[in-house]
């Protein structure tokens, strides 16, 4: 078979970027460069989301993660980056320990990822079946309006189950992820207020307009 599967090519490219820069995050010592590598890695993950058909999620990853969280992080880095703090080294022993644990974990995960046959992708010789499968799963619809589906999914309307008889489209008496959604919304507000409070600092400085002696040096 000599037709190139572009989907795979792009997957390989993005996967290489994501993994490569993730490794770079671990290896690089400078905290700012670390943040940059992380940004690239996360952006590549967003690309992988696109490839997996989760467009909305990919865009959300770019916007919230790469655009918001990482800016916040870099902001924090810049606020606290002073010469000696930019790169802090740890001992070799800890490195070895971390690597051993990491490699062991990776081996387990790899084993799990490749062992289940049902997790292997549609083989090339099954390709003829793909459109049919897509139709059956309403994959076309899934790609048509992923965001709308996602939104309705939050409300408990499962459009991806339209064609399945065994699971209900609308869960009786349940509202999907609505409760979780609400909780997270409230959580976010709490977090915002809390973060603002934590980062806030009171301190005494000599007020230039009151010429009284300074009660406490800053």
């Amino acid at each position: 078979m000599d037709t190139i599967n572009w989907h795979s090519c792009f997957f390989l490219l993005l996967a290489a970027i994501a993994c490569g820069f993730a490794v770079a995050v671990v290896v690089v010592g400078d905290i700012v460069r670390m943040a940059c590598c992380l940004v690239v890695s996360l952006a590549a993950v967003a690309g992988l989301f696109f490839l997996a058909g989760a467009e909305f999620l990919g865009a959300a990853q770019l916007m919230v993660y790469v655009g918001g969280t990482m800016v916040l992080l870099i902001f924090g880095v810049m606020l606290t980056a002073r010469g000696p703090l930019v790169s802090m080294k740890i001992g070799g022993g800890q490195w070895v320990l971390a690597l051993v644990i990491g490699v062991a974990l990776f081996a387990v995960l790899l084993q799990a990822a490749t062992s289940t046959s049902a997790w292997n992708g549609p083989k090339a010789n099954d390709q003829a079946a793909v459109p049919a499968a897509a139709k059956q799963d309403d994959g076309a619809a899934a790609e048509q309006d992923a965001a709308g589906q996602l939104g309705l999914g939050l409300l408990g309307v499962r459009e991806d189950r339209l064609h399945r008889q065994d699971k209900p489209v609308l869960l009786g008496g349940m509202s999907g992820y609505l409760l979780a959604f609400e909780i997270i919304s409230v959580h976010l507000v709490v977090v915002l207020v809390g973060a603002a409070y934590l980062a806030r600092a009171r301190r005494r400085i000599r007020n230039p307009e009151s010429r009284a002696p300074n009660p406490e040096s800053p």
Partner: protein
Amino acid sequence: MSIFTEPVGLSHFLVVGAVLFVCGVICMATKRNVLGVLMGIELVLNGANLNFVAFGSSVLRPPGTEGIGMDGQMIALFVIVLAAAEAAVALAIALSYYHAHATVDVDRGDELRG
């Protein structure tokens, strides 16, 4: 049959997720900078996210098998949002830690203080 012509499957994504996850764990273990640890956490969360999305994706499955459907994406969405919130709080803690200790070295913050 090269990797270029074969369609990618679920396990490919899982491997990438595993790499990200492990990198994140190692990062958390080896960095002494508070913010470095934070970045490790982000990587771990992303690895997990990738798995969720992959499990939920209909593109990556052999026909006839059933994934977790929309749930994967929704959980991933929640993870993204929560990660953002977590980053904000962690950053605020890091900042006030920095004010208190004039450093961002996690190993130095070994006492509880009001």
